[in-house]
């Protein structure tokens, strides 16, 4: 199933704006992540793959066919857009039954599948509510349910966890991991570094309509955690004068600290810091890094990525 999506030099413009600029892309089995800042062309790229947009030049092939010209190819594809695209005045049940029908499912089958998915996402209680009555997060759950109701071979997702609470976001990720195990292809578009690092997939960095780098989770950490600050959370307060001699120490949240900041040269330094803290009897409950703005990382001359 490798390379079931192939984009060769695709260009898509809107007036004078070049949204996608000569992108080459070949999907891998499992999760493919496209990371980039706002306006980088991620969503347009997804829509080109789905065949919603006709590309100005270049070609997109999905299962060796042009998705723009072959409507029936979409029975194997599914797209979750960033605006939910649900019918506000219809109930969740009628929305999902309608889309199920368009994917060739019977009414009963659509409802059965929808109920099972919504139950996993803890949203079954909203099944007979009108969409306009729902919160943003619940709408996103319903839209995700719609995207997988037909068990597609290829899942195209635009920020699928953007407005979900931690539990629901984790449920969505679990479903995606299940899809990955089944050998399906997922293209996941996001601007969140944190989200990217939760998957061990192929990562394509997109900026100004171009894929500027293809990397891995380690490659990403090499860039993101270069000469940056990390927060170490401790379960019990520790006197600062015990730990302030550790290399890279920057500051703590009090004389008896539970949150300490260290500057590290690269991700490998974090192990050294943790080892030193453990040696001083600290109980570590978490390590997180101060995320770079994706705009900074992918901006300008793409220097950050080139050096990764």
């Amino acid at each position, binding site marked *: 199933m490798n390379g079931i999506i192939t984009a060769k030099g695709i260009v898509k413009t809107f007036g004078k704006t070049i949204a996608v600029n000569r992108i080459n892309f070949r999907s891998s089995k499992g999760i493919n992540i496209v990371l980039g800042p706002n306006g980088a062309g991620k969503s347009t790229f997804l829509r080109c793959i789905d065949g919603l947009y006709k590309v100005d030049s270049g070609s997109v092939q999905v299962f060796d066919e042009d998705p723009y010209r072959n409507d*029936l190819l979409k029975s194997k594809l599914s797209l979750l857009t960033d605006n939910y695209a649900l*019918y506000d005045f219809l109930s969740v049940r009628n929305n999902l039954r309608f889309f199920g029908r368009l994917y060739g499912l019977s009414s009963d089958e659509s409802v059965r599948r929808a109920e099972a998915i919504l139950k996993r996402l803890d949203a079954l209680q909203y099944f007979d509510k009108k969409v306009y009555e729902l919160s943003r997060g619940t709408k996103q759950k319903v839209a995700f349910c719609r995207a997988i109701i037909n068990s597609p071979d290829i899942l195209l997702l635009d920020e699928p966890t953007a407005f979900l609470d931690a539990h629901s976001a984790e449920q969505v990720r679990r479903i995606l991991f299940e899809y990955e195990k089944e050998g399906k292809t997922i293209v996941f578009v996001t601007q969140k570094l944190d989200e990217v690092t939760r998957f061990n997939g192929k990562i394509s960095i997109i900026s100004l309509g171009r894929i500027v780098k293809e990397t891995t989770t380690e490659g990403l950490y090499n860039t993101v955690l270069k000469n940056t600050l990390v927060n170490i959370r401790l379960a019990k307060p520790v006197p600062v004068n015990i730990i302030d001699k550790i290399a890279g120490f920057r500051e703590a949240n009090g004389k008896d600290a539970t949150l300490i900041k260290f500057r590290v040269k690269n991700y490998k330094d974090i192990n050294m810091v943790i080892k030193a803290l453990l040696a001083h009897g600290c109980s570590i409950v978490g390590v997180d890094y101060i995320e770079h703005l994706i705009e900074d990382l992918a901006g300008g001359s793409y220097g950050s990525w080139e050096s990764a």
Partner: protein
Amino acid sequence: MDLGKALSIGIKDLREVFSSFEIYGPMLGVPMFFAFLLPYLTFYVTQHSGGSVLARLISVPASVAGIPQAQGFIFMSFFAVSVLGPIFLTMPILTASVIAADSFAGEKERKTSEALLATPITRSELLLGKIIASFLPTVVLTLAVFAIYGCITNYLAYQMFQQYILPTPPWLMMLLVAPFLAIGTIGVVVFVSSHVKGIKEAQQISTLLVLPILVMPFIAILGIAQLSVEFLLWLTAFLAVADIVVVYLGVKSFRKEYML
């Protein structure tokens, strides 16, 4: 073509229209208002100045000269069919333009079209579904309005003259014209929706179609032409040809991505 998918799209659109009072309220309200109000207006005019106005509008048969009751009946028949009939013919245009604009341009405006177009539906299934959703309620509503108007007019006529006025052959012919007006309007909306950004623009352009219809009462009043069966047959034939052209152009120019 999968007719089931087209029907699903049609039913979904109808559910949407009739679950929002903002859409179906004005669509039902205005025709119903006219269906009830206009017969009483006819009755009032007939009662107070029917005879005197009649002589200026049409040639009165010598057999009824000097018989106010008979003149009133002729006036009410003329007014109900030739003057108000065309006003009711604007209903299929207005109704179809409201529903079709919401169906086509509305998907674009609310950005629901992305999910719809991401499903395995063909252009034909999409268009047929949306045309069904616009056409059926338009025809049903027009029939209902004509029926209500006819019943009230007959009731008032019977009270006044102990005779019924409707249906007359021209009045029935107008019912035949209504579906053709609806199809033409939908064709225009399909064409226009490909080139506009939202519902209002699509509606404003398509409702311009009422203008030629509103000329018809004046044609009758000025004596240029009578809304006879023959005239309405010619009109129907003209509309049938125009519908083919308009729907063909609309369908040919329609691209799914225009809805995005």
